[in-house]
């Protein structure tokens, strides 16, 4: 599903192409599942949706929790089509349980 979206939005890009890497902060169950609190992933699009696709491929064991998570960019909740920069601070926000 992610691959198809990439082809539609990138036009000339081939399925395996990546445009760069981003660092992603992970918390709670996402960090536990990944075994780390920060991950660098190769993305095919500099968007929140692009990061989701990269994480889905990298962390298949966390796909269910990822699908229920929001993504924050530079300390704010981000929309799926939000464009990122190479130095954007990206964080996956799984369902919260404070209080």
């Amino acid at each position, binding site marked *: 599903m992610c691959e198809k979206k990439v082809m539609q939005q990138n036009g000339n890009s081939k399925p395996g192409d990546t445009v760069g890497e981003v660092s992603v*902060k992970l*918390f*709670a*169950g996402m960090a*536990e599942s990944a075994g780390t609190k920060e991950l660098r992933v190769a993305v095919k699009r500099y968007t*929140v949706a692009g990061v989701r696709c990269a994480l889905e491929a990298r962390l298949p064991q966390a796909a269910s*929790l990822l699908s*229920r*998570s*929001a*993504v*924050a960019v530079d*300390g*704010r*909740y*981000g*929309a*799926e089509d939000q464009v990122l920069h190479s130095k954007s*601070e990206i*964080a996956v*926000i*799984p*369902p*919260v*349980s*404070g*209080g």
Partner: protein
Amino acid sequence: MFQFSLTDDPIDTSLVLSTVVSASAGANVLFTGTTRQETEGVITNWLEYDAYKPLAERECVRLYEQAVRKFRIIKCSIVHRLGKVSVGEVSIAVAVSAVHRAEAFASASWLLDRIKEDVPVWKRQVGDAQTFWVHPEQEENTSRDSNGVPQESDNDMP
């Protein structure tokens, strides 16, 4: 006036309450959440809290601003504990002052509900039988868009 902090140290609840006292206020409410020993038959030895600090602060400021509009609160202070919180210890303190008690009670309750939905803080339940991060299933009536981003809603007006 709004104060927010995340702390690894025990919360001084008297201090939190004292920060919302105002000559304009006739009501001051302090809520404290504590680590419960048993949840649905599962024994908890302690909880561990983690947070994404920049977004937690931003979300709490947003909730405070909403609470001012909805309940006309005067002052508010929110302190959340991080790290290990033993049974009986305070994990969160929310203090609110308002002109009258109805707004003070309602706003404290509303703030707690919103914090538990919107603010990126997570608890890990540690017990003899099992240890796990708590990630609640999203309820259908929660005010989030399809990306999981909290939305402002007037449905929960008092």
